[in-house]
């Protein structure tokens, strides 16, 4: 049988339509397409894709089951390794992970592993209504801090082995960045809620509105009888640029902008939480979060949206697919451009002028790429005299985050690095006995799947340590 050189296209809402609604962009494969795509797999012996997956899903096995129309079997294979298949199938950067290792990809396009994973998970979620059986308890208790991807993965893996797991979440809804950060059009909230429900059926308890470091401390969790604690509290405080004007009204961190729209549903027609919706928007930064913010701005009703990034397209760190989607939707990329000041309205004669203090623009300077820095990325340097003003009403700053101080400051003996990230061993163990950590709280802002990988590693170490104890 001849090899089909390209992946089967992912059906998606047309750009002009989707740019103005919050419904999911990518619509998913139907059964026929999924089977046809699964048949592209060469089933090579050394299975390089598996090593490219941070949670080592048995990829060729589930793909084979798709070709046999055994979709539920495929689902069971995936869930042996991943607690959140419907999430990963949507937000993983497969092009730099499993798919980048695909043998087929050497000469052709790799197998669309992510799209197949999504198909399998969605198929299961829409056909299987019976919750998974609760495993027999093994008598051990573990506390997980944070219900984002690392916490949910750690909790799920432990619950499947019979551990009694409680997840503590600071916000009012479980899901962490999956609910406050990643927009509905990329990851519908019903999908996250479904994955959380699955964990609850496995026996995981979720306690919302509890801020570890404030409501309870890590030490108190041990006093309460937990034998191990996993910290998956996420990245924390947003970074700002330190340029004049960042406190004008209309300047948001990406965290605030996305939280208002996603978690607090400011995108609704009649929201209870406000957000600035109109005019022109500049998003500063080039990561996935910047793409999410820019595409959210468009859907909120912005007239025009810019991505302002100081390096070139080659260095832009966002997933290719997100960049392409953003471009198709009409977002303008101002590359090799760096903001130097946020401009605001000031009417000194009329202090009560309602427009006072609102953003009017972003002063930027053109950049060019100079010598490579220590990471080998060419350092952007300003081009003298190239300043210009970009008239905008809203500025969203998406240049990363710094670790949250709440747990560190209330947990004695918890070692952190220079940047404030929690120091862990390869097994995810911190400097405190019985305390493990993973995800952005350790690495700083990274991906959903790497956080899941860390949650998985820690779960394995926790299980080994507690089961050995007997």
């Amino acid at each position, binding site marked *: 049988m001849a090899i089909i050189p390209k992946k089967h296209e992912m059906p998606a809402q047309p750009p002009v339509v989707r740019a103005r609604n919050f419904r999911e962009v990518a619509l998913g494969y139907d059964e026929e397409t999924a089977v046809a795509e699964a048949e592209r797999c060469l089933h090579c012996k050394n299975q390089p894709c598996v090593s490219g997956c941070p949670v080592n899903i048995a990829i060729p096995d589930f793909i084979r089951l798709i070709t046999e129309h055994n979709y539920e079997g495929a689902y069971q294979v995936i869930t042996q390794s991943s607690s959140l298949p419907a999430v990963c199938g949507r937000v993983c950067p497969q092009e730099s992970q499993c798919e980048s290792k695909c043998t087929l990809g050497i000469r052709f396009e790799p197998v669309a592993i992510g799209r197949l994973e999504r198909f399998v998970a969605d198929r299961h979620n829409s056909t299987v209504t019976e919750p998974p059986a609760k495993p027999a308890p093994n008598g051990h208790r573990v506390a997980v801090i944070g219900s984002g991807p690392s916490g949910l993965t750690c909790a799920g893996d432990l619950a499947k082995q019979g551990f009694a797991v409680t997840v503590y979440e600071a916000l009012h809804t479980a899901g962490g960045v999956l609910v406050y950060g990643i927009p509905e059009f990329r990851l519908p909230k019903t999908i996250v809620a479904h994955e959380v429900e699955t964990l609850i059926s496995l026996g995981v308890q979720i306690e919302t509105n509890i801020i570890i470091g404030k409501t309870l401390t890590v030490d108190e969790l041990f006093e309460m009888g937990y034998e191990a604690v996993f910290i998956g509290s996420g990245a924390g*405080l947003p970074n700002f640029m330190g340029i004049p004007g960042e406190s004008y009204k209309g300047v948001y961190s990406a965290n605030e902008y996305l939280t208002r729209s996603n978690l607090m549903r400011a995108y609704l027609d009649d929201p209870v939480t406000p957000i600035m919706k109109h005019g022109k928007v500049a998003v500063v930064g080039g990561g996935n979060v910047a793409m999410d913010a820019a595409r959210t701005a468009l859907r909120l009703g912005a007239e025009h949206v810019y991505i302002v990034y100081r390096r070139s397209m080659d260095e832009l760190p966002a997933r290719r697919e997100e960049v392409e989607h953003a471009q198709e939707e009409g977002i303008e990329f101002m590359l090799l451009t760096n903001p130097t000041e946020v401009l605001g309205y000031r009417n000194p004669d009329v202090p009560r002028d309602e427009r006072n203090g609102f953003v009017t623009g972003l002063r930027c300077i053109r950049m060019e790429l100079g010598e490579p820095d220590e990471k080998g990325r060419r350092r952007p340097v300003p081009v003298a005299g190239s300043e210009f003003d970009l008239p905008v009403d809203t500025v969203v700053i998406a240049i990363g985050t710094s670790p949250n101080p709440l747990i560190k400051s209330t947990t004695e003996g918890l070692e952190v690095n220079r940047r404030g990230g929690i120091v862990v061993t390869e097994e995810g163990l911190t400097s405190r006995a019985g305390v493990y950590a993973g995800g952005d709280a350790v690495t700083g802002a990274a991906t959903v799947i790497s956080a899941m990988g860390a949650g998985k590693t820690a779960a394995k170490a926790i299980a080994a340590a507690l089961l050995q104890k007997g």
Partner: protein
Amino acid sequence: MYQIISRKALNRTVTMLEIEAPLVAKKAKAGQFIILRVDEDGERVPFTVYDTDKERGTVSIIFQVLGATTKKLDAKREGEYLCDFAGPLGIATETTGKQRVCVVGGGVGCAIALPIARAFKENGTDVTSIIGFRTRELIILEQEFRAVSDRMHLMTDDGSFGEHGNVCMPLVQMLGAGEQFDEIIAIGPMMMMKFVVEAARPYGTPVTVSMNPIMIDGTGMCGGCRVTLNRNGERITKFACVDGPDFNGYEIDFDEAISRNRMYVDFERRAYENTCNLLRAREER
């Protein structure tokens, strides 16, 4: 769900709610705040803790009906529930190691100032209180303040009760007469706190202010509550939710903070009117 154990109207627009939240009650200290949502579709709003009862496992807040959420909150009755209630957040006010302090409260800010005055008193500090209100019928907590103060000035803007004038007047008078305070703690409207700082400036008395910027998560994630401090010629960004809410009053950029708090005034006005209409329609039904 968090049950409302008791409810008391302190005046026409100010209400106290006692809410069952044992874990928060166990931890909360003067100056800290909580975040609540009234119902499933509600916004997240911070309120400073007024009082706690560890035995009953309750936390009390005092609020003035100003917008949509406080209007909905005010409509809640004893035995009903709030959807979410999380805390305690922020760093507690430092109330130890002081000989003599002046606590200045303005309007509903007095509800936050009182537990701070009380904590000082319990730590053996000499407490002078200045509390101010627009008019007689808006006065709250008068007896409670008297109980924890060594001396007290009760001011009304219109002179309808107590002394006539604003809270800065007795402060300036005392400082001018050579009275010494280790610290002045000012809590109330932004403008009032700004003027207290200006009143104290010539005397160099340290002033601590409690900031109440717009917040969403309150846990150090969104950065919406940022305030700017002017320190040694540098402008420094701090987050009220994890670095505050108390700050050195001399360092705060009040004009910026006042402006930022007015970011959504139009939206808030509309939301308030909608909520009022909704509640009225429900009553009529």
